[in-house]
């Protein structure tokens, strides 16, 4: 399975033609305590780089962008019920949604783990 990262601090893990999307551990540390998430419904068509979800911490609201284009197949209801999972398990149980890939080649433009790590260190 391939795991890729965006400059907006989303991660995307690909399994066949379905990708699981969330925000990175670095993103959650910057957001602070998350109190609300709004996730896209199954069936919604998302375009790469466009708004996909909303995450609100005690401090502020932030957009989560779609790392890849496709159709949402599942949203993480457990995260809606307990938004603090973004903080406690950003890159595991705290996933946001699963998306059926429209164009797998979009993944080529994203960063791998070591490139993302370097990006975070450089930017901050």
């Amino acid at each position, binding site marked *: 399975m391939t795991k890729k990262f965006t400059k907006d601090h989303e991660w995307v893990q690909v399994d066949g033609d379905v990708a699981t999307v969330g925000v990175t551990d670095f993103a959650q540390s910057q957001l*602070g*305590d998350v*109190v*609300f998430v709004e996730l896209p419904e199954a069936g919604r068509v998302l375009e790469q780089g466009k708004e996909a979800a*909303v995450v*609100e911490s*005690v*401090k*502020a*609201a932030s957009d989560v962008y779609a790392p890849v284009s496709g159709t949402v197949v599942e949203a993480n209801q457990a995260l809606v019920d307990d938004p603090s999972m973004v903080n406690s398990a950003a890159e595991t149980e705290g996933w946001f949604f699963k998306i059926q890939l429209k164009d797998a080649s979009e993944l080529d433009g994203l960063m791998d783990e070591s490139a993302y790590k370097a990006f975070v260190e450089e930017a901050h």
Partner: protein
Amino acid sequence: MTEAATALKTTPLHALHVELGARMVPFAGYDMPVQYPLGILKEHQHTREKAGLFDVSHMGQVRLTGDDPAAALETLVPGDIKGLAQGRMRYTLFLNEQGGILDDLMVTNAGDHLFLVVNAACKEQDVAHLREKLAGKAEVELLDDLALMALQGPMAAEVMARFVPEAATMKFMSYLSATFKGVPVILTRSGYTGEDGYEISCDKADAEMIARALLGESEVEAIGLGARDSLRLEAGLCLYGHDIDTTTTPVEGALEWTLPKRRRAEGGFPGYDIIHRQLTEGATRRRVGIQPEGRQPAREHTEIQDADGTVIGEITSGGFGPTAGAPVAMGYVDIANSAVGTPLTLVVRGKPLPARVAATPFVPQRYYRG
């Protein structure tokens, strides 16, 4: 580092904040801790459950002296300052000629002078305002050699009594000149969280020693500006520049309790005609508490609509209340929609979010009444 960042001022506790791992942000011209490693949510809860220490040294501390500084100050504020007994303090407002609020402040009768605490962002203009309007009547001194801290929470009294035993019996909104581990401090039993607690004014040079002593007590955690904001919002307390400003009067701001009977009758403060008329005939809009349904916070500048979809105002402070366990907000609505329970629609990120006018505070205030 940008030019703006290098120009930021620091408080005497700056090095301590950095040592404690605070995330520092610019606020009112100062480099201030927005949160510590504990995080806003836990800092908020800790203050409600035990005790939190806040650095508020950026705020302005002002000494007013003269033949009758209370009479002089009453020409600028609508509060009863002449009737303030020695050792007692009161919340009041600097007003402009339109009845708009220039700043909100605490005034203490310290015997031979009045002691004022004003907002950081307004302190220079407040001092200029005082000097101009009270010229020949009172001397105005900005006490920028002092630091200010707040110790807030249900265990604040117990903690403070270990250092200043006589602090335990201080009444809410009273003042005490005392000694803390051998150094002089001014304590007031007041704060900005809705909890019992103290504000501690001391010499800049003593601030770190006092802060370290208080943080050394097991009940006390350092608390940043993030939790300070969510605590005061739950307590229904206004943030100047957001919930009240030069365009809002005390009547519109639901602060009629700052307008005592004598001043309402006698006047003699800026904007009296407008405020008197609003007290008699009512204002057209009012600041209210707002409870959004569900869990999504509605933030400052969120548009408020009535049941028919007409825009009737906007949110001036909004966020998630960790103790309320729900989003909480305040804002201005037209007077027809200001009764508690009135259904409202908030437009959050383009979508309607149902809400209601709510009573404030959102959590019970727990001040020490003795």
